[in-house]
């Protein structure tokens, strides 16, 4: 057999982020694939042991670059569980608002990024520009476009600015107009159908074998396996939303679910704004003294939230000192990004390698950490 060794990445334009897949190909078919992570490895877990509990707030959003708010939420939830902090009601609502806005932003981005592997660049240009307008809202909220550092242990950093909710609602109305446009361009496109339909399958037994969560799992299993439903955090049990599911998971199904989740997120945002109390504290002080010298009681806790790609978790260990003893990060795309590539990328064509990564939602910084 004439097998050629090829390097897909780390500086291949089809690669999502700084990641590499080394593969043997025969003709156009991938015979063997090995993921090569570590290009983005910064040693976060070690660095977090060397920072104060509050100082870590600057580090954690950088673990998953496209979706920083999830990290903040997981960290805050874990620390609150360890230190037994009850946060005020309004903080919960604001957190949900921020998380769902972040979900809309990342879904828009990943909807647009289908243009990379398939060549539909117009979709990329449209969707990412739309996401940018959403980032403007974040900027108004906390001063930063990407790394917000807004959700902190004890609540959120500060109250919503004046008139913020109106702007969010206006943005939701705009998205209501725009997303059907993207659907027309992407989801109804015959060539996209040709590329994605019955391609890149993810059967239910593979889901259980790898431990894939998120859209990948729900599109294969057909049950509402979403942490927001199964193990509600914040006030997700007080809002009304559906978790879109399917029982046949190909790339097109997952793309469809992404858009349907987008609508559900917008529905949650509207409800949150409706139900949020207008007055009230948004955070509780976590310590009486200096925030830097703040100590968290000893204990071990695992906290998890539903990110756009699945279960995102931190395992936090405290020994009662002013720095964490150990924090382990479970990146949501860890299973499909490593074992999934090794076992299930083979048999696909080279053309689909990049689409595989995109469709499975592999986010490289959270794998490397």
């Amino acid at each position, binding site marked *: 057999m004439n097998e050629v060794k090829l390097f897909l990445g*780390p*500086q291949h*334009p089809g*690669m999502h*982020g*700084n990641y*590499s897949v*080394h593969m043997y190909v025969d003709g156009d078919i991938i015979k063997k694939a*090995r993921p*090569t992570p*570590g*290009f*983005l*490895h*910064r*040693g976060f877990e*070690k*660095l977090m042991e*060397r920072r104060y509990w509050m100082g870590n707030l*600057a*580090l954690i959003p*950088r673990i998953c*670059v*496209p979706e920083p708010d999830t990290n903040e939420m997981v960290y805050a939830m874990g620390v609150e569980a360890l230190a037994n902090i009850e946060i005020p009601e309004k903080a919960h609502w604001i957190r949900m608002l921020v998380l769902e806005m972040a979900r809309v932003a990342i879904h828009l*981005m990943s909807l647009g990024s289908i243009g990379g592997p398939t060549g539909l660049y117009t979709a*990329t*240009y*449209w969707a*990412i*520009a739309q*996401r*940018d*307008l959403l*980032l403007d809202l974040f900027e108004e909220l906390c001063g930063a*476009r*990407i*790394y917000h550092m807004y959700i902190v242990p004890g609540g959120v950093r500060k109250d919503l600015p004046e008139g913020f909710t109106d702007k969010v609602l206006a943005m939701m109305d705009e998205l209501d107009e725009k997303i059907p446009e993207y659907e027309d361009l992407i989801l109804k496109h015959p060539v996209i159908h040709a590329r994605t339909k019955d391609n890149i399958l993810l059967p239910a037994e593979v889901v259980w074998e790898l431990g894939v969560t998120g859209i990948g799992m729900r599109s294969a299993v057909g049950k509402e396996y979403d942490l927001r439903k199964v193990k509600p955090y914040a006030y997700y049990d007080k809002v009304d939303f559906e978790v879109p599911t399917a029982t046949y998971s190909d790339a097109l199904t997952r793309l469809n679910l992404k858009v349907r989740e987008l609508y559900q997120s917008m529905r949650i945002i509207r409800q949150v704004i409706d139900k949020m109390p207008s007055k009230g504290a948004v955070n509780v002080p976590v310590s009486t003294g200096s925030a830097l010298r703040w100590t968290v009681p000893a204990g071990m806790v695992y906290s998890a939230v539903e990110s756009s790609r699945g279960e995102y978790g931190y395992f936090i260990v405290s020994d009662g000192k002013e720095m964490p003893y150990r924090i382990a990060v479970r990146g949501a795309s860890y299973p499909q990004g490593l074992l999934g590539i090794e076992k299930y990328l083979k048999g696909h064509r080279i053309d689909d390698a990049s689409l595989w990564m995109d469709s499975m939602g592999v986010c490289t*910084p959270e794998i490397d950490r």
Partner: protein
Amino acid sequence: MVLDEKDNRNVWEKIGDYFSANSIWMKWYCTGCGAIELPPTMTSRYDMERLGMGPMATPRQADVLLITGYLSTKTLRRVIYSYEQMNSPRFIVAFGSCTINGGIYYDSYATIGRLDKYLPVDLYIAGCMPRPEVVMNGFNELIKMIKKGQAKGWKHYQENYEWYKKNQLDSLGEVIIKDEFHE
């Protein structure tokens, strides 16, 4: 700008620099988290193509290597590889505080501190991470530098090749990329 006062280019080099300045193809290599601000810079909101910049698929075709953020040692090996594949005149633009002094990862065992010890950086764009406006401004600055013939990092690299190589080997052990199938 006080880099180099005397301008000893001949007229052909000046014309060449004019073309180089107005058509900059960048290497699409997302080395770090700064890469998240590149799509907005490229797409409809900020539209980098106005400046004549665009992404290119391989280092051979590219003029500018964007180092978008921190570099782990593993990445630096590939970056050096990519840089040496590029054709001169070639430029390096480094993003974010991490490339200047290690930034927030100053004490990490995996990321390098200062990039211009290993590769000649023509322009740093500070910030963590730089906003698209800053990135655009940085590119404008790069265009000005090329027009004036001040972006001479590639010449510096040729002249001080031993010095750069020694630094690279000191920190990385070896620059050669090995088989990664581990079998």
